[in-house]
Structure formats: structure tokens, C-alpha cells
């Protein structure tokens, strides 16, 4: 019974998400030129952080022992995962604004799960450009690296992408839940999401052990790309993790998902309307 109820709730949430997101897509596409321009602009903005890496590599051959194609591999994986999560659920970062101005109340009275509504709110199709840009970089990485591909490695790539997207999405949800408590603290969330994504663009060998430990065991971002990519690239694992850790991302992603769900419920329950 409870299982059936949960499945029905999930279906209802997905339906609500589809409807709200679809509405925003239609409204975005009503202004086609404006959409194309902002999408191109986002492409430029997101492309720039790879240009920064290219600038660094114009001065050196390797950073932390990683060559440019290897960095591009890390970059592509983390940016694609992030791109999918950001597209799907990035709007949840605006929750603080809704709490502050009281418009969250409107979402609460609608007969649809709040999380689905918040995630689809102002669904920004232009975020596709992050995925496009990351795919291009990843394509370059695949063409330029001299990885000896095995069936396991090939299979691991889509697993990494999906798990990575789920880990980032969990961060977005947990960050949104945090904004129930600290409404103005939206920037803390970007420290973890955007900051995390920037961190993962560089190899783990660059960073201090404490930092690597933190993003492996506390906020398990290392499982988005560092750990599984070490397996694919044939590099030593960060922190001397065991060999099987490369296949742990789906497990880590499910734990993150559960934790974020819990945080969201606690956050939503603690919500007190401004009354306006």
C-alpha cells in the first residue's frame, strides 16, 4: 500500500514537473531570437572556464601530472553531469527568493509536490548550452587521450554521467532545503555546486589532502569523476582508495539522493510563511 502510494506520488511529481517545465519552454520559445542570443551567450560564458584552462596549458605541458586531454576528460565529465543536474533542477536555487517574498505559499496550495514545482520553476532551456559545451570538450578528450578501452571502461562512462548528475542534483536539493533556514544564503549553495564543479575540473593531485578527503567522504563529489576517471585513465586513485571504489558512484549517488530527500522534508516542514 505504502509502496503504491509512493509510486503514485512520484508519477504525480513527474507529471507536474513536465507540465510546469513545458509551460516555461513554450514561453521561452515565444521569443526565439532572444532565446538564441541568451543560449549563445551562455555558451560563451560556460566556454570561458575551459579557455582559462587552455591559457594555463599554453604555459605548461601538465598540471598536477595530468595532460590537457586528461584534464579535458575530467572537465567534460564533471561539466556534463553538472549541466544535466542544473538543467533539470537548478531552478531550485531560487527557493530563497520565493521564501523571502512569500510566493512559495502559492506552490504549497497547488495539488502537486512542491519539490517538482520548485525544480521546474522558470525552467531555463538555455542551460542546455552548458551540456553542449561540455560534450564538445569531452569529445576532444576522447579523441586525444590514449586510453586503452575495455568493456568495463566503456560501460563506466554513462554510469559516471548519470551518477554524477544525481550527486549534483542532490546538492541542489540539499542547498534548496538549506534556504528554508537561511533565506539569503543562496550563495552558500553556489560554493558547493559551482565551486564543486570548478574543483572537479582539475585533477585531485593538485589539491591538498584535507580538501580531497572532504570532497570524498563528507561531500562525495570525488565520485562524480575523480575516482571513476582514475580507473579509466589508469591513474593512481586519490587517497589510495581500493580498486572497487571506481564502481561505487551509483551507490554514492543513491545515498546522496536519500540524504537530500530527507533534508528537503525537514526543510519544508520547518517552513513558516511570511504571511504576506
Amino acid at each position, binding site marked *: 500500500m505504502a509502496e503504491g502510494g509512493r509510486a503514485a506520488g512520484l508519477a504525480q511529481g513527474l507529471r507536474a514537473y513536465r507540465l510546469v517545465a513545458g509551460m516555461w519552454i513554450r514561453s521561452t520559445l515565444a521569443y526565439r531570437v532572444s532565446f538564441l542570443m541568451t543560449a549563445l551567450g551562455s555558451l560563451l560564458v560556460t566556454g570561458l572556464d575551459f579557455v582559462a584552462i587552455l591559457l594555463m596549458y599554453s604555459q605548461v605541458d601538465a598540471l598536477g601530472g595530468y595532460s590537457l586531454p586528461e584534464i579535458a576528460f575530467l572537465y567534460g565529465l564533471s561539466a556534463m553531469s553538472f549541466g544535466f543536474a542544473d538543467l533539470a533542477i537548478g531552478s531550485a536555487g531560487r527557493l530563497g527568493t520565493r521564501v523571502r517574498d512569500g510566493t512559495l505559499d502559492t506552490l504549497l496550495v497547488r495539488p502537486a509536490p512542491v519539490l517538482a514545482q520548485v525544480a521546474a520553476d522558470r525552467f531555463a532551456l538555455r542551460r542546455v548550452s552548458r551540456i553542449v559545451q561540455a560534450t564538445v570538450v569531452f569529445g576532444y578528450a576522447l579523441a586525444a587521450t590514449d586510453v586503452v578501452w575495455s568493456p568495463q571502461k566503456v560501460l563506466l562512462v554513462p554510469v559516471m554521467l548519470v551518477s554524477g548528475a544525481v550527486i549534483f542534483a542532490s546538492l541542489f536539493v540539499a542547498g534548496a532545503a538549506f534556504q528554508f533556514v537561511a*533565506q539569503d544564503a543562496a550563495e552558500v549553495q553556489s560554493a558547493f555546486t559551482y*565551486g564543486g564543479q570548478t574543483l572537479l575540473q582539475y585533477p585531485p593531485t593538485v589539491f591538498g589532502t584535507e580538501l580531497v578527503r572532504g570532497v570524498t567522504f563528507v561531500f562525495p563529489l570525488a565520485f562524480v569523476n575523480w575516482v571513476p576517471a582514475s580507473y579509466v585513465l589508469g591513474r593512481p586513485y586519490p587517497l589510495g582508495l581500493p580498486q572497487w571504489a571506481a564502481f561505487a558512484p551509483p551507490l554514492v549517488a543513491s545515498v546522496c539522493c536519500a540524504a537530500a530527500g530527507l533534508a528537503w522534508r525537514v526543510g519544508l516542514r520547518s517552513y513558516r510563511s511570511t504571511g504576506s
Partner: protein
Amino acid sequence: MGSARLYAAVAVGSFRRYATYRVATAAGVFTNTVFGLILVYTYLALWDERPHLGGYDQSQAVTYVWLGQALFATLAIQGGGFETDLIERVRTGDVAVDLYRPADLQAWWLAVDVGRAVFQLAGRGVIPFVFGALFFPTALPRDPALWSAFLVAVALAMVVSYGIRFLVALSGFWLLDGTGALQALMVTGMFCSGMALPLNAFPQPLGDIVAALPWAALLQMPADVLMGVVDPWSAFAFQAAWAVVLLAVGRLVQRAATRRVVVQGG
């Protein structure tokens, strides 16, 4: 005399407006510290590979990172200052109220932006910088003269940054929707100010080009003044020249823009 008091009052009001949001400020401090941490490790690796890249040694590169984080919000390097307000006021038509005031549009918003910048220097800049200086090897001078020269360079950088963003905001009179212009501001700010990589570490001839653009006055100049890499007076001259040019162009564009304003009655 009277108008100086007016603009001072506007600046103080703006300072207090930003000071109200304490949680947001604390969140910003946290974010700048996290980004500083990420960046500092990549720079350490880069300078490990290429010691003396761009004429900096490793501790100077570290100092540069934390100065960047300290000045990021103050100089609104990727936007986030008064320009979003002004563009919105142009779009909604509220700018007509601004034009009615017995005050100059450019000077009014400069006062607003200076108030914001001073608050963000004290509220958002100092803590990440102190954190960086405590935990990483930095190259900070003991000479108080260099520190006062640094403050002068930061003040000039505030004006140059304002000059750039005032032009961006005025584009709203023609474009109405400021999204594209703000995006361009973000891209140029990130790239040309040396937020991603110090301008002196750019490959040539790109390095020479960006060093001549106004964005070089934002982060690169104050950093080089503090670390004693550049003669302060030549840095001030570069910054002041760009400030004057940008403010003058801003004034011309403002004149053309305000002629376009039509106030609908009713």
C-alpha cells in the same frame, strides 16, 4: 558644497542598504573563501610547473588569488552592482524619477556604487583575504606606504569598474532587455580583468592586448601595486586615464540616452 553632501548621503545610504543583509554577506564570504581555496591550489600547481610565470613567484601568485577573491564583489568584476538596478529602472520607466531629481544621473549612481563597494570591501573582502594570508604563503609588504598606495589603486579601480558598468547600464535605453549586455559584462570581466589567470601570465601577444584594456585597472593594478611589482604612479596614471575616458564617454552616452526618454503621462 551642498551637492557633495547629497552624494555622500547617497553613498552612506547605499552602504547601509548592503550592510542590512548580514546572512547574504556571510554566505558571500564563505563562497569567496571556497573559490579562493580551489583557485589557490591550481595556481600552486601551475607555478610549481613554471616557477616565475608572468614574473610572479609562488607566494605572489597566492597573494594574487586572495586579492582577487577580496576584490571580486567590491569591484563587481562579473557584475552585481548598481547596473542591474539601473537597467531595471530603465525597463520599467522608473528612471524618469531619477532624471527628475535635482542631481546628476551619473554622479548619483556613482555614489550608490561607491557605498556598495566600500561595504563589500570591508564586509566581504577582508575575511577571505585574512584566511588566505593565514593559511597560505603570501607576499605581503610591511611598508605602510605600499598599503596606502594599494588603497588608492583600489579606489581608482572602483571608479573604472563603475565607468564600464555605467555604459553597460545605459545600453538599456536602446536594448531595454539587459540580459545580453550583462552577459557580455560577465564574460569580459571574468576574462580581461585577470580573474581567471593573472594578465601577466597570458600568452603573448594576448597578454599585451588585455593589459592595455580598462579591465586591467581592476584587479591586476591594485595587486601589482601592493606587491611592489609596478611603480604606483604609473599604475595610478593608467587607472586614472581609463577612469576619465570611461566617465567622459558615459556622459556623452547619457546625454544621448536621456533625450530618448519619453515619459508617458497618466
